[in-house]
């Protein structure tokens, strides 16, 4: 029945959206509490959360949620985010975001930029979780491992935090019509033809879909 909504296509299912928001929510909360641990001058963060000790524990719990969600998200998106030869062409043209291009390779579900974001989150997500586990319990590891884990944790936060800002921009005002993909799950057909033409074509061939 829902497929009958005029000119709209369902691009995500509820499980996908729940996983996305669990991942994003736990990551952002980690970033927020992490910045409270990182900058003493940002003491409004611990003040808001009931002190630095509480902030530390909220950070760790949120990190554990992030870790498990990351595993699920990896399983869910790894196929759609696997690189293919055409991705190099997409990247070489800046995805059409930076200058005029007219021969962008047609995208399946996710473009090469989105895939890159996914793999950065996976790789640095694993690093931030592993280093986080070490600095949670630094005394059970050799001193050198503990010391470098603090540096690695901060580096990973820097990478994920910066990529997150790009993701935020491109997922909202940078690409009108995209945000609904993660709220209602429905995007316009025109949106699909712009953002995921190959996926749309394949799906229209299969009448059981929608």
């Amino acid at each position, binding site marked *: 029945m829902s497929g009958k909504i005029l000119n709209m296509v369902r691009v995500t299912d509820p499980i996908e959206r729940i996983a996305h928001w669990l991942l994003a929510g736990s990551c952002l909360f980690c970033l927020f509490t992490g910045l409270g*641990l990182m900058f003493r001058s940002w003491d409004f963060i611990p003040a808001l959360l009931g002190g630095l000790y509480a902030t530390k524990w909220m950070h760790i719990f949120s990190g554990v949620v992030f870790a498990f969600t990351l595993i699920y998200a990896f399983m869910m998106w790894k196929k759609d985010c696997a690189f293919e030869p055409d991705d190099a062409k997409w990247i070489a043209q800046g995805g059409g975001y930076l200058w005029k291009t007219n021969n962008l390779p047609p995208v399946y579900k996710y473009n090469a930029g989105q895939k890159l974001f996914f793999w950065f989150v996976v790789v640095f997500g694993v690093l931030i979780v592993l280093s986080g586990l070490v600095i949670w319990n630094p005394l059970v590891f050799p001193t050198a491992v503990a010391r470098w884990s603090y540096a690695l944790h*901060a580096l990973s936060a820097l990478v994920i*935090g910066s990529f997150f800002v790009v993701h935020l921009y491109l997922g909202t005002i940078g690409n009108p019509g995209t945000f609904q993909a993660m709220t209602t799950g429905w995007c316009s057909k025109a949106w699909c033809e712009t953002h995921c033409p190959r996926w749309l074509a394949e799906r229209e061939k299969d009448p059981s879909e929608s």
Partner: protein
Amino acid sequence: MKKTEYIKLIDTTKCTACRGCQVACKQWNEMPAMRTRNFGSYQNPPDLQWNTWTLIRFQEHVDKNGDFKWLFRKDGCMHCTEAACIKVCPSGALYHTEYGTVGINQKLCIGCKACISACPFDIPRFNQQTEKIYKCDLCYDRLKDGQQPACALSCPTGAITVGEREAMIDKAYGRLDQLEGKGIVYGDKFVGGTHVMYILSEDPAVYDKLPVKPRIPASVILWKNLFKPFTLIGMGAVAGMAALHYLIKGPHEVHENKEGDE
């Protein structure tokens, strides 16, 4: 803040390992003793503990000529000028006092243990019950009261003395002259100068658990001087670029020709 920096000079050549300082420290700071197990040395407890902020390390040493010698070293916080523990502490529990020494405010400590990993001398200790860090504070309360630290007061041989920085450095080098070159001054050449110095009778490398070239770990410098500021710089720069993109290129609209019915 008026700065009168103090230094505690520990002359190991005068130490007889009576452990008066160890006991005085516990007594003044009201730290309990705990049952320990003999591990084949007079050194007791075997290591620094949350409740033992200073410890005489006993070491049997055979020198180049085959002569046997006891080495005694009073271990404890060195009160670094460039203190790695303060650099990593997220809560401000560790701080420099007006005497240049490193104080600790347990009320602020969140028990993250970052200072333990960072300290090049392996000094801070964690208490599982209180979830707080403990270490020597160079008797901050006594210094404020014009008193010398408990350990210095208790020392019967004069191996521990405390005074103003310049005077103590002069005193240390003066003592070398008395020892006719058979001593080494340890503490003024690294981490910006420590506020605890040693006169050692042997090369620093000979002593148990004494770093020859202590410094703030490279990982801590990368973490705090590079990655930390760049977390904000990176996110801010990217946000700036996104804003510029929005203003110059505008949002990426979908192909309008496909809009409407079909």
